[in-house]
């Protein structure tokens, strides 16, 4: 708040935060897609009628992906605004 960051600092900070967000979301993607599926037989408890891992592959996984991609778009818009990176429509 005290001093405004220079444009160069702003850009550096913006890119670092972008990378951090991307890596974090990719980690979730990886856990849901591969780690949870690897242990599919161990996650066999009943979940509203489904065996949990079946539900995860058929409904849960895709649902997580939609939310993840939506969250990314929302978070990046905020990041753009915070670091003066809004895309101007020409």
């Amino acid at each position, binding site marked *: 708040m005290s001093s405004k960051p220079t444009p160069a600092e702003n850009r550096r900070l913006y890119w670092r935060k972008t990378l951090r967000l*991307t890596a974090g979301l990719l980690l979730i993607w990886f856990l849901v897609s591969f780690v949870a*599926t690897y242990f599919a037989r161990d996650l066999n408890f009943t979940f509203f009628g489904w065996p949990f891992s079946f539900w995860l592959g058929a409904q849960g996984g*895709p649902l997580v992906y939609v939310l993840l*991609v939506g969250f990314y778009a929302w978070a990046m818009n905020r990041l753009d605004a915070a670091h003066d990176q809004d895309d101007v429509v020409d």
Partner: protein
Amino acid sequence: MKGLKKRPGAGGATASESAFKQQLNKVYRWYTLAFFMFVVVLAVLEQAGLPREWIGFIFLFATIGLYAAIGIMSRTTDATEYYVAGRRVPAVYNGMATGADWMSAASFIGLAGTLYLTGYSGLAFILGWTGGYCLVALLLAPYLRKFGQFTIPDFLGERYGGHLPRLLGVMAAILVSFIYVVAQIYGVGLITSRLVGVAFELGIFLGLGGILVCSFLGGMRAVTWTQVAQYIVIIVAYLIPVVWLSVKQTGVPVPQVVYGYQLEKVTAKEKELASDPKELEVRQIFASLSQELAEKLKDPAAALMNDKAKAEARLAALRQADASFADLSAAEKTLSSLPRTATAAESTWSRRKAAADTKSQPLNGMPPHAAQFAGDPDGDPEAQQTYDESRRNFLALAFCLMVGTAALPHILMRYYTVPSVKAARESVTWSLFFIFLLYFTAPALAVMVKFEVFNVLIGTPFDQLPAWVAAWNKVDPSLLSVTDVNQDGLLQLNEMSIGGDIIVLATAEIAGLPYVISGLVAAGGLAAALSTADGLLLTIANALSHDVYYKMIDPNASTARRVTISKVLLLMVALAAAYVAAQKPADILFLVSAAFSLAASAFFPALVLGIFWKRATGIAASLGMICGLAITFYYMVTTQPWLRDIFGVTRPVELWWGIQPISAGVFGVPLGFAVIVLISWITPAPGREVEELVEHVRYPRRQRV
């Protein structure tokens, strides 16, 4: 900060953008309403006695005519309009168009069928084909939009410099898209010939006409607006029968929420069927048939001689005894249907033995629907190995489909058409949402059809089977056939052969809906195949006209000339693809999946490193693309039966870690990354321009001109 958001000039553009979007909303609202009215009118006409063939015809010509009309209205020769639809497609509409572009005949017709036949293993397709969009969103779409040219090879050419990366990109894009488009045109032929009963080849060319009018006249602009219209047809056609089936079975109109309970019932019924005495009887009959064939296969030549002698002796005996004409002609038929040569006999018998082996297993060879992976981790060593390989292949397939999704040029190209980086990110969300609507319904469809088959069909007397069974049996026995193997007059599960492609097309009939819904479903399948074919053909033609002709051969070519060349090429590629599809190439599902593996290993490492690693050099990227593609292709050729035949590979199949050829990309992608990283380190760093380009794509903010 807030005040800075709207820069001078930005406000006006935003206003015109939102006016454009409102106009679109109005048009597509009317369109959807008119489409519903059209279906209702046809339903009323059907009740009044309109014949089924007419319904098929009306659906075929009305939908293709509609797509053509949109194509004609959107015709253009302006380069930005032709290549990227003027870059003003709102995020939601681009999402719908991407959904239609993405969902091919394989998704629409094949996915639920695959899930029906393979249960849990089929979920690799669901995970793979949706999870890939996370990679598109996080790693590619916004950056490619900021780069903002016309094609994917464009990016490779600019980022890595020189013609080689661009040319490699063009070749890979053409290879991948061509393989994929052949499969789509094949699907078009299949659906049109079913829907209206024309010959397969004629069906192909009818569909081709529809494809061409859209993409030929108006390029990306026409294709985008047609694809939005097609998405609406696709999703309506997919959801109606499933919702109906769900209401019929559970009373709840949201199949995606309630089918878990149906799955429980299916699992219970599976246990019952596995030990049902009648089923065991049928399985026993198939087991002894298999044994008989195994005997014959030990010495096919002798067995064939023996069969021939027996048939001839029987015919002679019948003639001697003055037997009835029917008996005589039956005996003659037996004799004439014997294989001609020992080699022919061997292949026929092996095929029949494989079928009998499947049918001597519980549940007609289908794994229990909810069982994760085959084999058993606590069983004997063989069962343990089956389990490990099954699980490894599931993960490998999901990986290839995900990375392949994020590397298919015709999908990535769609994110050039939105107005801004922000819109590109939002558009991926919409794309995935619209795709998700269909993909999280497909598993429900499969389970509900299985429930219907297990509880309604199985155990029904043969003379009381529903009419659709006989009807499909007549259309194509490879899709559905029933035979009373144990002669007890009742249908057992193992007495029915069912092809995956029938599941979606027959759902309306299985649910007991009027024929008009079957027509609607076929129209949906057609829309899925056509929209994907449109996008793919455009990708090929643009790669050739823009990247090869304009960027490499004649950089001074006028826009009109480039667009004309693109149109001519489009026509030629479309005809070539139709020609290949008319030859009915063997394995369609394999072709589609191969396209994913090849795209993944060719594009993904070069694109991602190009954006996220400034040090990646041009020569490294070229080598990485070549190595990735080469190893994927090599693995497929040496392990996939159909390709082995084509390339004459005779040495025994050697699977690496038991990975199936469908997932060959699992070797190509890591190799591509490794080669690019290693070679980049030992080659001189790229120059300033590349650094500036990478900086440029990383930050959404545009420099004021």
